[in-house]
């Protein structure tokens, strides 16, 4: 929805996991493909639960997916 201080490596991790498609990740996490696109573009910060679901679907820990940068 807006720019966020939370960045992520979803796109890189998707490709590392056998070029998983955005739709496949969306299906695995119970969200729409548009939400995955917004996440990858850094336009949406997910809920904690969705963050865990994404990490689980990508087979990594949540801190490997999301990074928080402290606002100036």
């Amino acid at each position: 929805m807006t720019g966020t201080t939370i960045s992520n490596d979803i796109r890189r991790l998707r490709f590392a996991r056998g070029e998983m498609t955005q739709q496949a990740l969306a299906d695995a996490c119970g969200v729409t493909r548009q939400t995955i696109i917004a996440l990858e573009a850094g336009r949406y910060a997910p809920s904690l639960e969705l963050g865990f679901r994404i990490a689980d679907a990508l087979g990594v820990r949540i801190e490997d997916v999301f990074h928080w940068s402290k606002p100036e």
Partner: protein
Amino acid sequence: MQGSVNNRQAWSWVAFALLAVIGVMVMAVGATEPALHLVFGGAMLLLIAVSGAVQMRAQRPGLDGATPSNTEKAAWAQIGMGLAAIMVLGGVSLGSMRGSWAAYLWFAMYAVIVAFFPLFRRRFIESSRGYREVAEDERDLAIRAQGDYLAKRLLELALVALGLVWVFLPGLIQSVRAPLQVACLLLLPILVANVAGEARVAWLHWRDRQ
């Protein structure tokens, strides 16, 4: 397949252009009569045509080929429906269809739509979703909350504005006397606020895809 889509789009552009021309003509007739409800109706037809054209442009694929989600499509559809309702009910409050059964029919139809709106919206979203696709996720709900917030604030402001006009400038709405006209006038702020809220929802969805 692509040809039929292009054909459909071309016809949609023609329909919107035609609607805009009719709107301008109705406004011109209303201005020469003069008849306020015709000017209003013409302006609303023009606005519906413009919103339809904007919707057509907005539904193009964006980042990573992202097409509009079902909730975005629902928001666009609701803008069109809301503008049509403003045109009809606003027209009734300004004196069109005065005393005719059609005015009561439109009012009753609006009441039914409002009563069953959540059901209609759910069915609209579910009908166009694919296998395993979720109907509405947390981002959709977050965006919807922003639209609802704007609609609520606008509704408050619009009702206060209407109240101020009623109290301090009664001459402006002295022609609104019949119970149905008053009821339609009171519904206008709700419709305007809802259209603005849906426009914000559609805009936020669209922006996320760019």
